[in-house]
């Protein structure tokens, strides 16, 4: 028995050694931020990437996590250090025991326009298929709210996960879904296709923390400086994009793979129109998120802002004049 068991443990140890040998290759040396899908709201992340990030001492990488809630799962696994995602899914994760904080917002309003492939009455009939990105994400919640306003529940329709806005649009074109919330550039494409506008949530100017930078509290506590550096890069990217239209459009063309100059043009306009300049998280927006989450029967364990939002990084950058400096440098108002 002795000889055999020794052999067995040697093999086992070899197995672990192999696993151990690969592990360090994956050790992170860069600041990785996850995004759900390429759309207007994450452009600031792309603007910050590269030159500007390097200037602030950051080796930054953008990882596509395909959907907000999945991105949060990835964030909790430790594979990425930050996730660009809405407040609502983050609050839900915190409800279930996660310890995440939003340190900055990129979009403080609901920008969706829900389109249906054809006009009907009611605009969303019972039993129709509605596409969202992933369960529990902003699109899911937006759809829930809209359904509720129409006197329907989630059980009356079939909600299906399709991924980002371009995938949702493709599904509408293919007839795989009847309706879906869309963002630019899919909104323009939907208009061109002659799809029926069900509701424009942007026009309603609903205060809503739609997208922001989410970081695990524990990581933030240990890496305050890295987080600050990232926010600096993020803010500088935003300001540069707002002032340097040509450069911004180049980035849009490259990162969103938008070849049509018209698409690039209105995507940039949308960016100008929507972006929160100083990346601060809107308080009424956050309160609205809490209120609506409760309304659609999702328990909110704590609606204390401090349990979900960490304003110290942005407050610090405001206080030491970094943001004012950027405004001056890039002449952005």
């Amino acid at each position, binding site marked *: 028995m002795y000889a055999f068991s020794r052999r067995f443990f040697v093999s086992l140890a070899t197995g672990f050694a192999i696993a151990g040998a690969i592990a360090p290759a994956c050790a992170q040396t860069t600041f990785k931020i996850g995004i759900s899908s390429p759309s207007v709201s994450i452009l600031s992340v792309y603007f910050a990437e590269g030159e500007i990030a390097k200037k602030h001492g950051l080796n930054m990488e953008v990882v596509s996590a395909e*959907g907000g*809630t*999945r991105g*949060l*799962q990835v964030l*909790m696994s430790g594979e990425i250090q930050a996730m660009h995602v809405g407040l609502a899914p983050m609050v*839900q*994760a915190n*409800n*279930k*025991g*996660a310890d995440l904080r939003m340190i900055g917002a990129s979009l403080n309003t609901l920008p969706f326009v829900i389109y249906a492939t054809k006009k009907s009455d009611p605009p969303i009939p019972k039993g129709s*298929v509605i596409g969202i990105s*992933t*369960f*529990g*994400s902003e699109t899911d919640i937006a759809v829930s709210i809209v359904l509720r306003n129409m006197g329907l529940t989630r*059980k009356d329709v*079939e*909600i*299906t*996960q399709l991924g980002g806005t371009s995938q949702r649009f493709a599904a509408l074109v*293919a007839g*795989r879904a009847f309706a879906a919330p869309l963002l630019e550039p899919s909104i323009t494409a939907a208009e061109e296709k002659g799809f029926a506008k069900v509701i424009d949530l942007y026009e309603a100017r609903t205060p809503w923390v739609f997208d922001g930078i989410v970081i695990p509290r524990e990581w933030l506590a240990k890496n305050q400086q890295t987080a600050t550096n990232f926010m600096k890069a993020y803010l500088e990217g935003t300001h540069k994009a707002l002032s340097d239209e040509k450069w911004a459009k180049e980035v849009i063309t490259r990162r969103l793979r938008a070849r049509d100059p018209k698409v690039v043009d209105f995507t940039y306009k949308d960016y100008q129109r929507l972006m929160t300049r100083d990346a601060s998280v809107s308080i009424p927006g956050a309160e609205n998120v809490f209120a609506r989450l409760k309304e659609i029967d999702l328990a909110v364990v704590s609606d204390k802002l401090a349990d979900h939002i960490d304003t110290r990084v942005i407050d610090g950058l405001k206080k030491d004049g970094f943001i004012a400096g950027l405004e001056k440098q890039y002449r952005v108002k």
Partner: protein
Amino acid sequence: MNSRSIADICRDNERLIIGASAFAAFLVMWEGFSRGWWATLLAPLLGESARALAIKPIFISSPTGVAQQSWTMFAITGEIWPHIAQSGGQLVVGLGAAIVVGVPLGLAAGRYRTFSYILDPFLSALNATPQVAFLPLFVMWIGTGFWMRVLIIFLLAVIPITMNALAAVRTVDPRLLKVASSFGATELHTFRTIIAPSALPFILSGMRLAVGRSMIGIVVAELYGSATGIGIMINMAGASFDTDKVFVGVLVIVIAGLLMTEGLRAIERRFDGWRPAIGDNM
């Protein structure tokens, strides 16, 4: 008969005792990780690094959490039943179709050589492919609803059933076939009296494989889907960080899988009564 000492009883039930205690130890370990027992216990020994032994329930859930959640979902809200019904329905239709198509196809290919030459390249190619790769195609063709999932289950299940039915005919004792033809049995009669009875155990073990694979079908097809189904339930629970619920879903699948394979095994044993045990075979 009371000559058995406690030591004897322990020795005779060793399997049960060791198995049960290992399982209990596993549950205690698990519970301990999620409640931080080990972190507290080993803190004096390991100091700060002991904190790594406390794992948030959001990551691993806990046995009591799973038990509680099961109770809620089964008995209080009953929310799991529609999921089970939906997935069960898909399974029955998909597996049923696979049997209806696969068994005759395999029998025919086993009996008629030329037909097997035609079928063979397709069957081996399909067998080598992880069939779930067809998922995006099926979604394009028929959407994400009930029938897409039935189709995936069908595709996963039909291959082992066909292949086993084919192999089953091939292993029929040629002497028996000779007996049949010397008595002038018709083709249909030969199938019924010779081929079917000796092929049945193989076909049943093919079905057992197929059951396992159709469980994969359920879970995978519902990654895309919507509304109801165990796979969907797991997926949604994962997305909303309800790890307890994820494990409840896993548990349902474990139990369903065990029940079905054990049930089929029992049927196999019943039909296999006439066959002497063969030591050398697997």
